[in-house]
C-alpha cells in the first residue's frame, strides 16, 4: 500500500509541478487559467492522499468550482488576452526567480531540518473531517478565522465599490423609448392638441392612399 501511495504521490507531484510551470510559461492566458485548474486538481489529489477527504472536496468546490471559474470569467471578459508582441516572461525574471527560490528555501529548509524523517505515519482518516475542522475553527483558531472573515468582508465591500457606478463618471444609461417620451413630455409640458390623421370621412369616399412617410423611406433601405 505504501508503494502505491508513494507512486501516486510522485505522479501527483509531477502533475502539479508541470501544471504550475505551464501556468507561468504558456502564452495564451486562457490556457494558463486552465492549467491552473489542473494544478488545483492535483492539490486536491494530494489532500486525498493525506486522507483529508473533506479538504480535497472543498478544494475542488472552492478553487475549481468558484475561484478558477471566476478567474476564467474575468480573463474572458478582458480584451487582447494574448498579445503576440508581449514577451512571455517578465523582463527581470532572473531576479524574480532568485527571490522566489530564496523565499521557498526559507520555508522549506526549516521544515526539512525539523521533520523527523524516520517515522512515516499514516494520518488518521478523520483528522480533517468537517467536525474536526469545525471544532478547530471555533476553538483553537477562532481569532485567525475571524480575521480572515473580516478580510473577506472587506474584499466584498471593495468589490461592491468597484462595481458601483460612479455617479459623475458613469456613462449615460440607455434610455428606453418610454423614458425618452416621458422626458420629452416633461420638457414640453403642454403640447397643443393635435390630430395624428385627418378625420376620416365617411366610408363611401376614397380616402387618400397616403402611406406614412417613413414607410417609403424604409422601403428604399
Amino acid at each position: 500500500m505504501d508503494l502505491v501511495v508513494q507512486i501516486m504521490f510522485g505522479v501527483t507531484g509531477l502533475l502539479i509541478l508541470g501544471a504550475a510551470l505551464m501556468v507561468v510559461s504558456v502564452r495564451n492566458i486562457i490556457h494558463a487559467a486552465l492549467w491552473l485548474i489542473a494544478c488545483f486538481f492535483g492539490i486536491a489529489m494530494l489532500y486525498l492522499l493525506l486522507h483529508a477527504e473533506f479538504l480535497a472536496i472543498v478544494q475542488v468546490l472552492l478553487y475549481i468550482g468558484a475561484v478558477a471559474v471566476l478567474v476564467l470569467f474575468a480573463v474572458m471578459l478582458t480584451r487582447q488576452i494574448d498579445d503576440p508582441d508581449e514577451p512571455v516572461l517578465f523582463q527581470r525574471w532572473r531576479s524574480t526567480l532568485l527571490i522566489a527560490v530564496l523565499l521557498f528555501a526559507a520555508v522549506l529548509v526549516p521544515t526539512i531540518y525539523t521533520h523527523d524523517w524516520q517515522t512515516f505515519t499514516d494520518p488518521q482518516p478523520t483528522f480533517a473531517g468537517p467536525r474536526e475542522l469545525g471544532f478547530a475553527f471555533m476553538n483553537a483558531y477562532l481569532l485567525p478565522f475571524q480575521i480572515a472573515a473580516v478580510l473577506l468582508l472587506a474584499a466584498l465591500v471593495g468589490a461592491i465599490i468597484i462595481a458601483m457606478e460612479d455617479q459623475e463618471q458613469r456613462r449615460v444609461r440607455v434610455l428606453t423609448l418610454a423614458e425618452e417620451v416621458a422626458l420629452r413630455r416633461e420638457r414640453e409640458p403642454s403640447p397643443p392638441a393635435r390630430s395624428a390623421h385627418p378625420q376620416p370621412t365617411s366610408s363611401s369616399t376614397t380616402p387618400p392612399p397616403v402611406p406614412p412617410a417613413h414607410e417609403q423611406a424604409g422601403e428604399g433601405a
Partner: protein
Amino acid sequence: MITTDELQINIGPQHPSTHGVFRMLITVDGETVVNLEPVFGYLHRNHEQLAEVNTYLQNMPYTDRLDYFNSMANNHAYALAVEKLAGIEVPERAEYIRVLMVELTRILNHAGAVGFMINDMGAWQTPLAFGIREREKILDLFELVSGARMMCNYFRFGGVVRDLPDDFIPRLKKLMVAMPAYIDELERLLRENEILLARSEGIGILPREVAVSYGVTGPVLRGSGIAYDIRKAEPYSIYDRFDFDVPVGSVGDVYDRFLVRIEEMRQSRRILEQIIEQLPDASGGHINPKARQNVRPPVGDAYARIESPKGELGFYLVSDGSTKPYRYKVRAPSFINLTPLGDMCRGYKVADIVVILGSIDIVMGEVDR
C-alpha cells in the same frame, strides 16, 4: 472604474426566432441593447412589380403569399380594392361569407401569434401547440370551402369562388364550442403566470404618440391604448352590422398586446355568432362570378383597406383601363409595425428583443414582399 465594451451581434438572418429571414443588427452593452437595426429584404420577391404584369385576377393568388397566415384577409383587401376600382357589387351572401372567413382568419392568426410570442419567451411550444390545434380546425374549414389550407385564393371580384358546402355551418358551430374553451384555457395557462408577467410587463413599451407617428396599426396600436379599428372607423364590407368591442391596452407593452389579441379572439367569435344568425340563404345572388375573369376597370385609382389581423392592410391600385393594374401597392401592416422595433428594443435586454419582436407579430412574407 470598470469600463466595458459594446458588442455587435447579428441576430439573424438565420436564427430560430426571427420569424423568417430577418436580421437584427444589435449593439449590446453587456446584455442591454444599445442599438438595434432591423435589416430586411431577404425575402423580397418583387411582389408589386410582378403584379403589374399580371391581370387583376391573376394577382389574387399572389396576395395569399403576402401574409401566408391570413390569406383570406389579404384576398379580401385586394378584392375590395379591385371592386372599388371597377365598381363591382357584391351579393349579400358573399359579403357574409367573406366576413366569416376573415374573422376566422383573425382567430387563427392570433392563436398563432400568441403561441409564437410565448414560444419566443421560451415556453416549449405548448401554447403554440394549443394554438396550432385550434388553427388546424379552422384550416380544415378553409380547405372545405376553398380547397387549400393556407393559400386559399378564395375571393373573387364580386363574390367568392363557391358557396359554402352543406356541412360547413355545422362544423363551424362545433368549432364555436371549442373556441371559448381554448381561450379560457390559454388564459388559465398564461394570463396570470408570474413568469409571463415578469417577461412581458413593462417590456417593449410603445407610447401612443410614438405608435401614431410611426403609423403602427392593429393590435400593436390598440395595445398602446388607441381604439383604432378600421372595422369601426371606416366600416367596409358589412362590418357595420355587427356588435363587437374594440379591446385596447393601457400601457402599450408586450403584455397589453398579448391581452388585446386574446380579447380580439373573443370578439371575433362574437362576430361569427352574429354571422351564423344573419347569414342569408343561397338564393340571394350569384356568388361565384365566373364571368369576371377579365376585369377591365376604368382609368382611375382606388385604395381599399381592411383591418387585417395584423393591422391596416391596404391595396392601392391605379388602372390605365387595361386588364392589368398600372400600379399596385401594398400597405403591409407587418412592415409598418416592424419599423419601430429598433426604438422599442432600446434599453432592454437581449432576451427581450425576441419577445418584443414576437409581440409585434410579423410575417416576413408581408414585410419583404
